[in-house]
């Protein structure tokens, strides 16, 4: 890996998954960067929605919170939070929900609530926010996170949001009519659920990444797809766009890093 970082590769691979006609519910952090890189490269007409109520927003820099002023200033319209969750999310108008995770299991179930017991937690995490209903109401879910044994775990401590449950047809059994997690993009690889078992399976390794590196940073035995390919390296345009966005963001936020 030369010329770009694994974090840049992750963000750019995530950006590529978005289409020009997607309506995307954006979480903060890595998803926000990926969505805006998509908008600034191959998907200029993508609709980005933040849960603060800003619909069709086009920020020049990445927001530090999901409710930064620029999101509103550049939005097509800004609605109330109840309307956002009722008409736009629950109403089924979002094609892609982009989520991060503190803990993730092989079936795309996410924990951002607690490490340990819920009532006497070892670590109290922020909780779900919009995630439980983003996971059930969006057409499909993309997940992005850096790999680590603490993050990709055999069993999550708490189901903050439901992915494919114990796998197979778990979603249908719950009455869910949306696809759930269809894509996991990490700093090392691209994963897609097996059509039958719904277990996340590596379908592409980022340039220079080995199978061993993926397994060493994952808490379950990794399956690799038969037709495993290499993720195309970032193009100059993609890298320039992401770096310029990050530079504008750093300047605007007074040198602050975006989490």
């Amino acid at each position, binding site marked *: 890996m030369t010329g770009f970082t694994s974090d840049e590769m992750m963000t750019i691979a995530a950006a590529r998954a978005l289409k020009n006609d997607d309506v995307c519910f954006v979480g903060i952090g890595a998803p926000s960067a990926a969505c805006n890189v998509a908008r600034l490269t191959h998907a200029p007409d993508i609709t980005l929605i933040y849960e603060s109520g800003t619909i069709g927003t086009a920020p020049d820099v990445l927001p530090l919170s999901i409710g930064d002023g620029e999101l509103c200033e550049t939005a097509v319209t800004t609605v109330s939070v*109840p309307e956002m969750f009722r008409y736009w999310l629950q109403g089924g108008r979002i094609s892609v929900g982009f989520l991060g995770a503190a803990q993730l299991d092989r079936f795309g179930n996410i924990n951002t609530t607690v490490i340990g017991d819920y009532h006497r937690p070892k670590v109290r995490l922020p909780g779900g926010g919009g*995630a439980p209903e983003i996971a059930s109401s969006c057409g499909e879910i993309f997940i992005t996170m850096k790999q680590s044994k603490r993050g990709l775990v055999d069993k999550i401590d708490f189901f903050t949001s439901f992915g494919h449950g114990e796998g197979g047809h778990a979603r249908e059994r*719950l009455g869910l009519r949306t696809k759930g997690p269809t894509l996991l993009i990490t700093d090392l690889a691209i994963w897609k659920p097996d059509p039958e078992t719904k277990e996340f399976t590596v379908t592409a390794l980022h340039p220079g990444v080995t199978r061993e590196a993926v397994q060493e940073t994952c808490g379950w035995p990794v399956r690799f797809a038969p037709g495993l390919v290499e993720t195309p390296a970032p193009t100059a345009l993609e890298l320039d766009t992401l770096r310029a966005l990050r530079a504008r963001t750093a300047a605007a936020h007074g040198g602050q890093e975006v989490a």
Partner: protein
Amino acid sequence: MATFMSLAEAVSGNLFDGDTAAFEGFTHLIPHAAAHEAIRQGRRDLTLVRMTPDIVYDQMIGMGLAKKLIFSYAGNPGVGLLRRLRDAVENDWPHPVEIEEHSHAAMANAYEAGAAGLPCAVFRGYKGASLAKVNPNIRSIICPFTGEELAAVPSIRPDVTFIHAQKANRRGDVLVEGIIGIQKEAVLAARRAVVTVEEVVEDFAGVHPNACVLPHWTVKAIAVVPGGAHPSYAHGYYARDNRSYLEWDAIAADREAFMAWMKQNVLDKDADVFAGRVAALRAAR
């Protein structure tokens, strides 16, 4: 009927020990000045309701005002965890805090139902989510037409809601613009509403007919506190103080640093300091 008064009077006349209180503002227009006044007045045993507790409730919890917290996302936006809240939940410091945790969708629907005078909110949610197992206030109803099971949560009906808004007019009507969040619902769901504003204008002449306006008869008290949302922001007035959010992480990490900061910046100050805190942020907006 809205009455204009000082923030100290507005808080002492509307927030009482044991109240269920909401301080709302979704990232934008967070009523920090009102929260600081509540801390100075030493209110206790509050049930604090807020979708995104963030710094404003981290401070109130750390200062011992909260008996219970009803919330859906307890993070410092863009920074990380809330260390005073964690200390209360994980270590019972300064005392145990009961939590009732929901999703954003549930909280938004619960405020909406409160504003609508309903006893509960009905929505499609919590499918497969563990919260439904640990929170007894997450139940279900069956649609009498399709048989579909839908989630139900109790509506939120605070004793008092505090919000910060851009403007009041002389009659006491209140204008909220930009990211309007849950403010209208939080005010209409409450028995009493207290509003801090950036300024008072003669009237809202020329404002868009469908702008978010709370008529004066929905509000009990209005206090003029320029900068009263700091370090949150007021669209059209001043920018978010992102640096303060980052710095909070270190302050809140240590009990003594926290107490010293609160003494210096809250207990020994009054509402007038907020104007100065946003002076340098006005250019950015």
